[in-house]
């Protein structure tokens, strides 16, 4: 048996293999039938099949030689305007040889493109519509500028249901001969919440332990995969251990390479989820927002977030005194 990452090994190859997003898949299949597609935006949370759908669509459209008609760019790695001016344009302007007169350009994580690059893209999309169709993939379509949105057919992907997850996993479980108990499947759904990449990675990591997978295995795997515990950092600060929470922060930034913006978003969520008095949630939201703004201005992540942790420490202290 050969192993690769199961998320790749079992990535659907054709639209008909996709277990979810039935309405979207139907419409994409009709594009294949008519051999014509508009520019598209695939928006939705991670692990819901956006990239897979784009790849399947291309494969169904062109058959085995689809690679010649396709270019995949990831905007997070190549986000600047020069990529649009050079790479994208060069690809888009040349006519494809074959039955279908256009090529396909997949721009993944397009919400990370700079504003300039998006403006440049807008003109490219218009000028070369005949020779190239674009599929933009994004978590939030709101981060794509209006003029591009209005030129694209929007598709909203949603998290997979429990049935979707199970029917997808069953295939892997059979083929790879792993044993998963029912509470194991419950746990996977509980932690991955319909993000199929996370689902599959969790299953594989749990399977690597070489024993039947139950709920406990799943939780221990997830615990090891997400050493970043924002909640713990907040709790430490609120309990008055600023130094300990700053240590956690350092670990996140320097050791695990988390971005400051991700950490602060998580803090924001956790504060509103927490059981602290309601009026404090609003007070703290103000502090969080201010620090977020400073981060956007390009300030140092650790110093700024530490200042926020100091705020949390003070808040914890005052709550205890009943202020």
């Amino acid at each position, binding site marked *: 048996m050969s192993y690769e990452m199961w998320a790749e090994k079992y990535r659907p190859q054709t639209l008909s293999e996709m277990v979810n997003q039935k309405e979207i898949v139907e419409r994409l299949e009709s594009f294949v039938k008519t051999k014509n597609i508009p520019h598209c935006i695939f928006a939705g949370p991670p692990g819901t099949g956006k990239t897979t759908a784009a790849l399947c669509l291309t494969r169904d459209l062109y058959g085995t030689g689809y690679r010649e008609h396709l270019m995949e760019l990831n905007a*997070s790695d190549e986000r600047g305007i020069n990529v649009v001016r050079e790479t994208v344009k060069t690809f888009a302007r040349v006519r494809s040889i074959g039955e279908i007169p256009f090529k396909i350009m997949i721009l993944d*994580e397009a919400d990370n493109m700079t504003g300039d690059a998006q403006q440049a893209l807008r003109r490219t999309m218009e000028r070369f519509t005949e020779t190239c169709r674009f599929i933009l993939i994004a978590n939030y379509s709101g981060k794509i500028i209006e003029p591009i949105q209005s030129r694209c057919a929007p598709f909203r992907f949603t998290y997979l249901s429990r049935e979707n997850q199970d029917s997808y996993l069953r295939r892997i479980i059979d083929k790879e001969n792993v044993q998963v108990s029912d509470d194991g499947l419950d746990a996977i759904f509980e932690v991955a919440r319909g993000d199929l990449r996370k689902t599959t990675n969790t299953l594989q990591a749990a399977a690597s332990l070489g*024993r039947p997978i139950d709920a406990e295995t799943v939780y221990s795997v997830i615990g090891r995969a997400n050493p970043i515990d924002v909640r713990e950092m907040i709790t430490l600060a609120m309990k008055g251990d*600023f130094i300990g929470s700053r240590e956690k922060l350092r670990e996140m930034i320097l050791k695990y*390479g988390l971005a400051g913006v991700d950490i602060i978003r998580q803090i924001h969520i956790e504060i509103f989820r927490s059981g602290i008095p309601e009026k404090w949630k609003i007070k703290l939201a103000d502090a969080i927002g201010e620090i977020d703004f400073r981060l956007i*201005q390009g*300030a140092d992540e650790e*110093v700024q977030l530490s*200042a926020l942790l100091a*705020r949390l420490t003070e808040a914890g202290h005052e709550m205890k005194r009943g202020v």
Partner: protein
Amino acid sequence: MHAAWTVKHKPRTLSAVVGNRETIEKFRSWVESWSKRIPKKRAAFLYGPPGVGKTVCVEALSHDLNMELVEKNASDYRTAEMVQRFAGLASQYGTLFGSRRLVLLDELDGVTGTADRGGIRAVIAVAKDAQCPVVLIANNSYNPRFATLRRYCLLIEFKKPTVLQVVKHLKRVCAGEEIEAEERALKFIAERSGRDVRSAVNDLQALAQGRNRLTYENVAWLSSRDRKEVIFSVMKTIFYSRSCAEAKRAVDATDVDPDMLFQWVYENVPYQLTHPSDLVKAMEALSQADLYRGRIRRTRNWKLMRYVYDFMTAGVAMAREKTKPSGWVPYRFPQRIRWLGQTKGERQMRSAIGMKIKRKCHVSSIVAVKEILPYIRIIFENNTQMRADIAKWLDLDDAMVEYLAHAKTRYLKQ
């Protein structure tokens, strides 16, 4: 190329391990005695301070004797059930492939919490009935929790190597990195590390990476005595001034690099200003100072530097209102500088792996590092077959595989 030097230049064979010669001999002859008959003590307990070569020694010995090393980091496997699973491995001497086996349970200190008593009991069971050499490693064998365990083990104490022995190892690293280093510089690093070889190599990497010559001047600024005194007196002024003017004079009097001073102040604020409301004010001042630093970077307008100084000196000084004086609190070397040095190799390694994943998995290298790498790490730690196949599939080099399979938290432990 981007690996941490502690990993890259780890001794592969026993003769390359510095210090503890007799100790190592004792350990070697115990392991070798297994080939004749099972010795009375079936487990060896290696203990000693961090960074003296305990784990390295076991790894090198298994390499020299061509034994299969089964290694687990005990802080990951704290519960009894986890240890028992591991114990199965210790129940046979030979492996399927004919080579002999050596079982290592590392970082046993991690199994000592009150919740983990069952864990230690399980380790004792392993030590009693092992059919192959079992090696336990901890920093402090005299922890009362190990009392019973000690009875079943051959106790082997590792001591700190001498400064010259540490220097010898640093020289070898320098040779490997093609760095010409002054003896005095290496001696300085060795002394400063407190004869902790790992930490010395980390410091060396932080100071020497990217250079081809390392002089005493390159390292001496780190914490030479006068330097330290200058910093300490500036810090004292900043934390105890009663007026803005006095606090601001602190920097006029010295030529301390402002970024360095900022790090010192930032590190020490929570230790000096312990009352939460003082802490908030001081951290806010530093946050403002940092904002101005950013503005200077963007506008190249160095006139703004005076505001950076205002906030990091007077701003911090004026924060002191409610903190009660509590005697002498020593100033700490900025941990962030140490961390940056120690994690640099790790960060570069991660993004190199991210680029490899990106090629296969249709994601950006950033998403690869955040969302896929953690799972690959678990797989690599647990399943050698999957590890080999995935490594080949992703086209990872040996250093990457090594990093993923053994990264643990070792560099940052201290």
